C-alpha cells in the first residue's frame, strides 16, 4: 500500500463524517441560497450582498474585522515576546491562561463587558476614583471592537505562540551574534518565522469577527450592524431563509477566495498551523 493510499484510508472516517455532516448540510444551504421561496432558481439571494444596505454592513464588518484582527496581532506579539523574555515557556500554562476564560459562557463574558464599559459601569467607577474623566464607549463601535478583540484574542495568540515557541533559542542568539538588536531579531527572524502561526490566527479571527452578531447587539447597542447581524436577522427575525442562505454563501465564497490569496500564498509552510 502506498503512503498516499494509506493516507486516504486513515482520513476515511473523517472524510465520511465531513461529507455527511458538513458538505451535505452545506449543499442544503446552498440550495436555499440559489432558489426563491417558491422554489425557482435565482441568483438574487447571493447577489443581495452587493446591494446598498447589505454591502454597507459588509464593508463595516470588513473594517471591524480588520481592526480587531490587527489589534489581536498587535497585542499578541508583545505578549509572545514577553513570554519568551521571561522564560515562561511552559506551553501548558500559556494554553490554560488563554483558554480558561472560555469556560465562562460567551454571552456571560460579553454581558460582563457591558457592565464594565457602560456609562455608569465598573471602568468609569474606577476612573472616577482615580480622579480621571469618564469614558463613554458603551454602545459604540469601539465597544464592539473591544468585545470582538477580547473574544478572539486567544485564537490569534495560540498559533503565534506555538510558532514562536518552536524557534530555537540558538537561532535568535545567532541573529544577535551577527549584530541584530532586539528589534532586528524580531523583524528579521522571529516575525518571519512566526508567519504560519500568524496566518492561521488571521483565519481564525477574521472570519468570526465579521459575524459576531451577539457582540454587536449587546456591546454595540445594536447600532453597529455587522454582516452577521444581517444574516441573523434574515434567519431569526424575518424568516427569510433563502436570503439568509444566499448572504452566508456569498460571505463564505468571499472568504474562500480572499483568505487563500492573502494568507495561503505567503504561508509557504503548509500544515504548520497549530493551536
Amino acid at each position, binding site marked *: 500500500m502506498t503512503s498516499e493510499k*494509506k493516507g486516504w*484510508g*486513515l482520513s*476515511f*472516517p473523517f472524510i*465520511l*463524517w465531513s461529507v455527511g455532516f458538513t458538505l451535505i448540510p452545506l449543499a442544503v444551504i446552498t440550495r436555499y441560497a440559489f432558489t426563491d421561496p417558491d422554489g425557482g432558481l435565482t441568483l438574487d439571494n447571493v447577489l443581495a450582498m452587493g446591494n*446598498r*444596505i*447589505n454591502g*454597507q*454592513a459588509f464593508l*463595516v464588518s470588513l473594517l471591524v474585522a480588520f481592526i480587531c484582527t490587527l489589534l489581536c496581532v498587535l497585542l499578541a506579539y508583545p505578549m509572545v515576546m514577553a513570554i519568551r523574555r521571561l522564560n515562561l515557556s511552559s506551553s501548558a500554562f500559556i494554553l490554560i491562561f488563554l483558554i480558561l476564560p472560555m469556560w465562562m459562557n460567551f454571552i456571560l463574558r460579553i*454581558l460582563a463587558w*457591558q457592565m464594565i464599559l*457602560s*456609562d*455608569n*459601569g465598573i471602568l468609569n467607577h474606577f476612573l472616577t476614583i482615580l480622579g480621571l474623566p469618564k469614558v463613554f464607549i*458603551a*454602545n459604540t463601535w469601539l465597544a464592539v471592537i473591544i468585545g470582538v478583540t477580547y473574544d478572539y484574542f486567544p485564537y490569534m495568540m495560540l498559533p503565534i505562540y506555538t510558532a514562536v515557541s518552536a524557534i530555537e533559542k540558538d537561532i535568535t542568539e545567532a541573529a544577535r551574534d551577527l549584530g541584530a538588536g532586539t528589534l532586528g531579531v524580531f523583524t528579521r527572524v522571529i516575525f518571519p518565522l512566526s508567519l504560519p502561526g500568524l496566518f492561521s490566527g488571521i483565519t481564525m479571527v477574521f472570519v468570526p469577527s465579521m459575524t459576531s452578531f451577539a457582540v454587536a*447587539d*449587546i456591546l*454595540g*447597542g*445594536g*447600532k453597529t*450592524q455587522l454582516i452577521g*447581524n*444581517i444574516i441573523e*436577522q*434574515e*434567519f*431569526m*427575525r*424575518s*424568516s*427569510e*431563509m433563502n436570503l439568509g442562505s444566499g448572504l452566508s454563501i456569498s460571505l463564505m465564497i468571499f472568504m474562500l477566495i480572499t483568505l487563500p490569496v492573502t494568507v495561503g500564498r505567503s504561508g509557504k509552510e503548509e500544515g504548520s498551523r497549530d493551536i
Partner: protein
Amino acid sequence: MRYVIRRTICAAMALVLAMTAAGCGGKAGSGSQTGKSLTVFNYSEYLDPEMIEKFTEETGIKIRYEEALTPEDMYTKYKSGAVNYDLLCTCDYMLGRLIREGEVVEIPFDSFENLDNIGKRYFDISKAFDPDHRYTLPYFWGTIGILYDTSVVKEPVDSWSVLFDHSYAGDIIMQNSIRDTYMVALKYLGYSLNTTDENEINEAQKLLIAQKPDVQAYLVDEARDEVVAGNAAMAVVYSGEAYLGHEYNENLEYVVPKEGSNIWIDSWCVTKNCKDMDAARQFLDFLCREDVAKANFEFIYYSTPNDAVVSSLPEEMKNDKALVPPDSVFENCEVCTRYDEETSRMYNELWKELKSG
C-alpha cells in the same frame, strides 16, 4: 501501526453507527411509547418548570419541553418538521400566520373546566388574528410603553414624543425589534401599527432615522437593566419588564403613551401534528387553573388574562399599571396582525437600513 489505526477506524465507525441508530431509534421510540406524552414549544423562561412536573404528576402525561428565543425561530424550527411539536405558545401575528397556513387545529374549548377563568375580552382582542377564537388560548398579554427614570425625567411623560424631541439625546433605549420599533414611530405619527401603506411606513422610517443619533442603544433583553443601572433615562419596554424594573429601582415609572400602543398577546395553539388532542386539552385546561396560572404569573410577572388570578392579587399589584393594565389600553392600543409578505420584506429592508445607517 496499521493494525492500531484500523482498530481506531473500526471503533469510530461503530460509534457513528451506534449514534445514528440511537438517533433513529429515538424517532421510532417516541411514537411507540406506551405512556402519553406531549411535546411543548414555548418562549424561554415563560412557564414555571415546577408546573410541568406538577402536570405530569397529576395526569401521568410526560412533557417534552423546548424553548425558543423569538417567534421567528420558533416558526423556523416548527416548519422544518425536525421535531413534532404538539403545542406551541407564540405571539399574535405568528399565530395569525400559523392559522392562515393551516398549521393549527381547533381547540375543544367546550370540554375545558377552567376556561371561565380567562377574561372574555382577551378572546375578543384575539379576534385580530383568530377571528372566531377557535384556535388560540390566551396565555399572557401586555402592552409596550416607556419605562423612565423619574429622577432624570422630571416632567410627566405621557407621549411617545419624549423619544423624538431630542431633549434626552443619548439617554434613550429603543427595542431591537422590527415591529416594536416601527410601532412606536407609527403610533406617534397617528397611524395604525398594522399599516401596509408605504408612505406611512416611509414616514416612520424617516422619523426613526432622525432619532437614531439620540438613541443610546437598540436592545431587547437588557433594556430594563440599563435603565435600572442609570445608564439610560428611558427605554421602550414590554410591560412585564416594567414591573421588575420598578422592583429594583423605585424611581422607575412605566407609561403607555396617550397616542396608543401595541397590545400584545401570547397564546397557545395545538398543531396539526398533535396525535393526542385529549392530552393537549388537559394541558391547556391545566394552565387555566387558578393555582397554576398564579404560579406562572409569579414566575414571569407579565399580565395574565386569568381574571381569577388578577382578582386574588394584593391591592398594591392590582394598582400597578404595568401588571394590570387599566381598561383604557383596550381603547387606543392595537393588536399586531400578520403583514403580507411584501410589507414584511419592506420592513426587513427598512430595518436593515436604519440599523446600518
